[in-house]
């Protein structure tokens, strides 16, 4: 029975100690109680934060790992303005708001290349020839076809002989066929100025006296 009393005494003692150390009345009292058993208990108000434990390597690394290989990334950066909304706003417009490509080229607003590799490309020849086509007894609807603005953009074989024969007046061109997408209508109304609103550009007499 003696060992049980001993254990009881130890348990009760440790209970009082824990009560005193854990929930002691004041910090000074707790310090006094703790110093009975433990050493190096800092007095109240002088507690230091625990030092972080840093584990050092046992030996220096045998070799320095080489830096990862730098793969050159080719980023395509166009040398021209790619703010297309701004480009579109600055391009000259015709009477109905379409882009006036001939004026844009004349004014130098755009400098379209003559080939995919502009350094090794030559411009197609520009032909300053006006072709006059007059419907029978209808001088008001006389058409003046200027080769110059067309050859600034297009090559001879773009139109001849697939769309137009080389002889003036050889093709039965009519507005009906043009509206149906033949002859001039192969480009005009699709990528060049519209047929329905561009009358005086070809039928120059319709524009009135200049």
């Amino acid at each position, binding site marked *: 029975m003696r060992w049980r009393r001993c254990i009881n005494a130890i348990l009760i003692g440790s209970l009082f100690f824990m009560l005193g150390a854990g929930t002691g009345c004041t910090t000074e009292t707790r310090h006094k109680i703790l110093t009975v058993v433990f050493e190096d208990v800092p007095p109240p108000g002088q507690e230091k934060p625990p030092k972080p434990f840093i584990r050092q390597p046992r030996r220096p690394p045998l070799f320095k790992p080489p830096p990862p290989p730098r793969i050159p990334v080719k980023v395509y950066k166009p040398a021209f303005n790619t703010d297309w909304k701004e480009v579109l706003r600055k391009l000259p417009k015709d009477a109905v708001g*379409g882009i006036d490509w001939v004026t844009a080229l004349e004014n130098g607003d*755009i400098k*379209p*290349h003559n080939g*995919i590799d502009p350094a090794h490309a030559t411009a197609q020849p520009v032909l300053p020839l006006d072709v006059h086509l007059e419907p029978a007894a209808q001088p008001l609807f006389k058409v003046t076809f200027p080769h110059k603005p067309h050859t600034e953009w297009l090559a001879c074989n773009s139109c001849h002989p697939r769309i137009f024969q080389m002889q003036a007046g050889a093709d039965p061109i009519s507005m009906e066929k043009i509206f149906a997408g033949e002859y001039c209508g192969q*480009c005009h109304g699709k*990528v060049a100025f519209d047929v329905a609103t561009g009358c005086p550009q070809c039928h120059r007499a319709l524009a009135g006296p200049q």
Partner: protein
Amino acid sequence: MMCRVATVLLLLVSAGPLVPAYCAGVLGDITIPRKGTDSTDFMPQAFFPHWIHRTRFKCYVCHDALFQMKVGADPINMDAVREGRYCGVCHDGKTAFTVGFDTCERCHRADNSGS
């Protein structure tokens, strides 16, 4: 009556965003027609802004050496473009932006407003 007016107004307001998209279309813009069916048909059809290309190149650079004048006349597909034919002649990362998975939607786009 009021309900009808309100419905019309609501329709006009909801159709508002569509109007600029229509107005911004430039003469010559082409949506490349799609022939047959393919596993990649979920992509929008390719859009070709003619006018942007006209500011950079003359007509005879592409016609008729690379493309026929008629829309849909050439059997353009992505394999041919990646091999460097059709669009791939220029769109190789040197003359123009390259064809890759980061540039799909520059051509394959549903919204064609603003070039």
